[in-house]
């Protein structure tokens, strides 16, 4: 093979690669969760689970400044050639260069992503250098008998890495335990959620959620744009049809993420597509989809049974589907005369575990669409609190803020897969919690 044909081969390789869907690792900042989720439907973009598979880092909205370093670490894990795109958001997180490409909020980031991808592969745009210095977490050079930073067999910090500690496992043996922190950009968790855990084998023996996760970003909007109907319902009457359609869509969006966690990526995309397609009166479609999910073995072999918290423990907490799956008929809508006039009755089940949470949400999705079809022009009559898809939402209190303290007790003792399933099945939304805690909103209420 001559030089020219070799070059031609390389050129055609590049030509082929240029037409590939852009592999994007997307990070959803405050209030951008649904927009980032919708990128999964974009044909030009391929959302990837790990920065190692990405060419572009898409940062949507404003990031909690406490997570800027973690974000830089995500950036540095991407293979060259790589680039960053900022979508909406007002501030560039600290280690990132201010010259990062920006796409205004409300504009589709796909053309910009495609253009940057093209210039990266062409070589007309230089790949981004690492943002963080390459330093060891602990100074170790020259320490110890071999200069490896350790001492003896299990002492010191060889090569800057602490040795494992022992912890009892469930069989009564004392074995190495692995401390691990996942988040704030773990693809299966809502953006911003951090879970600190200690693993003994595949079992979580210690779980903690650090405080301050629902701190609002320093700059940029404090509320999602546009405001969700649930948020508006706190201060003004809202069409019930609109509210219930939004509830069905929120449940389907949760379902999409949760299905992907169970390995059903195509069906998860289908759920996301449904979230866009459905309208009032589409309840039969949801019921058909529910039946299809039943045939995947989801409830039989994929979701852990009997892993809920006690009903008495969450009584009065207003955790929406979680409460109702524990047999508690807690629903703000029952207090609303407008809903009562429609003959609304909450979906209550008695499973109190992950499959029951799923069943309640699926049943509520269909019920909401029925309600939306029946409600006509009716408005909500109750102002000041509202039943969000996750539970009772009040100006200074959100269901996510109330559910977060349950995470450690729910996850401790579970196998990793079950723990991740339980975590995604909780449907936590830190944005909602930030908005509820935001003083601006509390003042208007």
């Amino acid at each position, binding site marked *: 093979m001559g030089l020219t044909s070799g070059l031609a081969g390389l050129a055609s390789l590049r030509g082929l690669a240029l037409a590939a869907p852009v592999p994007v690792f997307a990070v959803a900042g405050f209030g951008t969760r649904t927009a980032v989720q919708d990128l999964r439907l974009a044909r030009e973009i391929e959302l990837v689970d790990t920065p190692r598979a990405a060419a572009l880092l898409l940062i949507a909205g404003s990031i909690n400044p406490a997570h800027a370093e973690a974000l830089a670490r995500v950036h540095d894990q991407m293979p060259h050639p790589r680039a960053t795109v900022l979508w909406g958001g007002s501030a560039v997180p600290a280690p990132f260069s201010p010259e990062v490409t920006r796409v205004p909020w409300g504009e589709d980031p796909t053309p910009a992503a495609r253009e940057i991808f093209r210039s990266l592969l062409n070589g007309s745009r230089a790949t981004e250098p690492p943002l963080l210095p390459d330093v060891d977490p602990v100074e170790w050079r020259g320490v110890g008998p071999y200069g*490896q930073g350790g*001492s*003896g*067999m*299990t*002492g010191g910090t060889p*090569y800057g890495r602490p*040795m494992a500690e022992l912890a009892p496992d469930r069989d*009564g043996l004392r*074995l190495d335990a692995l401390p691990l922190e996942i988040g704030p950009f773990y693809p299966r968790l809502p953006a911003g959620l951090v879970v600190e855990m200690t693993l003994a084998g595949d079992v979580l023996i210690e779980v903690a959620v650090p405080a301050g996760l629902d701190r609002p970003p320093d700059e940029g909007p404090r509320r999602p744009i546009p405001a969700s109907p649930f948020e508006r319902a706190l201060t003004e009457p809202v069409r019930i049809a609109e509210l219930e359609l939004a509830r069905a869509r929120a449940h389907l969006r949760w379902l999409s993420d949760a299905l992907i966690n169970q390995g059903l990526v195509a069906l998860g995309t289908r759920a996301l597509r449904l979230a866009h397609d459905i309208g009032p009166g589409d309840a039969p479609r949801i019921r058909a989809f529910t039946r299809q999910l039943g045939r995947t073995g989801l409830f039989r072999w994929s979701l852990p049974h009997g892993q809920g918290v006690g009903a008495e423990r969450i009584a009065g907490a207003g955790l929406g589907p979680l409460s109702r799956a524990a047999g508690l008929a807690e629903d703000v809508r029952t207090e609303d005369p407008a809903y009562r006039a429609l003959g609304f009755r909450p979906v209550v089940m008695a499973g109190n575990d992950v499959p029951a949470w799923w069943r309640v949400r699926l049943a509520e999705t269909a019920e909401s669409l029925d309600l939306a079809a029946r409600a006509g022009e009716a408005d909500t009559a109750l102002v000041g609190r509202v039943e969000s898809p996750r539970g009772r939402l009040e100006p200074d209190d959100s269901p996510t803020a109330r559910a977060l303290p349950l995470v450690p007790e729910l996850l401790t003792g579970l196998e990793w897969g079950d723990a991740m399933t339980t975590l995604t099945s909780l449907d936590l939304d830190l944005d909602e919690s930030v908005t509820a805690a935001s003083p601006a909103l509390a003042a208007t209420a």
Partner: protein
Amino acid sequence: MIPTPLVDAAFFVFAAGAIVTGYRVFRTDSMVRAAFYLLASFSAVGGILVLLGSEFLGMVLLLMMAGEMLIMAIVMVMYMMNPAGLNPMTMVHQNRVAAVAGLAAFLALAAVGLLGDFPDRPAPQPALATEELGIELLGDSMLVFQTAGVTLLSTMIGAVAIAGRRGRSGSAEDGSIEPALQPDEEDAA
């Protein structure tokens, strides 16, 4: 059939591979690497067995060792204080004696191999070898075969009894004495 020079070349590659990886087992710091080197050594021996016409044994050796070495790696990571070999360690004792003993064993056995006078009666073609082994297993050597099976069964039961939390006589934690761990520096010295 594969031509003889090819067989010879394959044998030398396998034999060198088996010996080198076998030696590397005791010369690596990482426990997982040690298990994989041992597996490589076994795989090479399995290859030689196939070359020798004992296809069945070679393949069974590979089949068995793959599972065994995975378990070995996991057991070592479980119980070793320093499974990744982050701290350099010399976990050997009586190194000189052992080396001499190993060399002596090698020389003695090699001498037997070189000086011994073995009859030249080659085995039949592989197809027949596998079939004959099958007939032998379930014919004349049935008793041996069954004994091996029963031995394995009792091993399984015994292993579970020894390793289980409820040991042979009551809970393993009761009445046990935990020795004082010597300072780690002493071990390394």
